[in-house]
């Protein structure tokens, strides 16, 4: 059954939010949703860029109180 997982990468400069997502994606099941929490504004751009290139689903990005929430779904 698909799950929703939180990847809390707030305050992460290295390895950074996208690297945290790449690592989490490996352990996720197809259909799982992963929500990345990031304090780096660049995450709203670089996460969708990778998601589209690798072929997963990009769902949405929103900013709340300085934290970007980027929601994606593992597709393959």
């Amino acid at each position, binding site marked *: 059954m698909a799950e929703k997982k939180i990847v*809390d*990468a*707030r*305050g*992460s*400069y*290295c*390895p*950074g*939010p*996208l*690297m*945290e997502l*790449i*690592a989490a994606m*490996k*352990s996720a099941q197809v259909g799982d949703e992963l929500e990345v929490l990031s304090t780096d504004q*660049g995450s709203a751009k*670089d996460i969708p*860029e*990778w998601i589209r*290139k*690798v*072929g997963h689903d990009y769902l949405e990005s929103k900013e709340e109180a300085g934290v970007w929430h980027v929601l994606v779904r593992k597709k393959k």
Partner: protein
Amino acid sequence: MKIVIVGGGTGGTILANNLARRLSGELKNGKARLILLSASERHMYQPGLLYVAVGKMMPDELYRDQRSLLEPSIEFHVDPVEQFALDKNQVKTKSGATIDYDMLVIATGSRMVPETIPGLAENSETFYTEESAVKMCKALQQFQGGKVVITVGVPHKCPMAPLEITFMLNDYFKDRGIRDKVQIHYTYPIGRTHSLENVAKWATPEFGRLGITYETLFNMKEVDGKNKILRSEEGTDTPYDLLIAIPAHKGMEVLEKNGLGANGFIPTNRTRLNMEGRTNVFVLGDTTNIPISKAGSTAHFEAEALGENIAAMVKLGAPVRDYDGKVFCFIQAGKDRATYAMFNYTTPPDPKAPTKAIHWFKLAYNKLYWSSVRGLL
């Protein structure tokens, strides 16, 4: 008060020595006991493996006897933990001993897992163990020219390693007089040449200056050893003659078996370093799931904060400070130049241009490390 530290790497050793000094009175009068359990009687300086791989350090230079690094008041046993019974405040060791604790610290580190990528272990060189670094050194000596590809798994220990080995290889082939016969091709998982933006801003023009090609948004999928092709999750194929891997890492298997955390990384509070949901279990270094660098310096700074807090809990009944996410990493920019990156949860790094002076300091640190783990630096 019985404090048990599991793991004799950088974090566990620094913490044990730190606590031995802070609690010297309590250890002397029997009000506290400090036990360190490790899987090895030897302590390895892991950053030295990079130099072994390019023939600039010998393997025996990497080791010291673990007991020689510890304060005499620390009860040290080579007896790794196999079972964690956290609800009973007990651990069980390989020798069959059951050890009770009041406070437990888990600092068992991480390990490379090249076997998670089909074909990678059999068809690549790496340098995360003594055996693999020596093998890579020999493979480099036999290499006479062609395309060298550097590939990077996630997460990996030492975030500077991909850049460092690339710059070291550039100088290595220059020194052998075959740089013009070698194409060095660097790949990296995200959309720039390093996770730290300011490091990428420095490294990318360096690649251009040195004639190093690169491909970003490249995550290993499989290695076709027969045809010497590295395939990415993103759908690209990269031929190679020599494949150098920074494999993905996991925490120790024993932690997964005991259900302490996915992939062997324990969910950890990022400022107090306690295991989530536990007030008397703490986690250090690569073993945490905190989204910061898996590096010796991370373990070092965490150990200093945790040492202060555990001592305060023994003496005052409460912790006194937060870990602020501090990390300091040297960056070897070739055989004779280096720079560094220092950052925490709120302040990004701003690395300066590499200099020979920083390189010499890094070489000095390769020796000073032994004072550092003793808690003297």
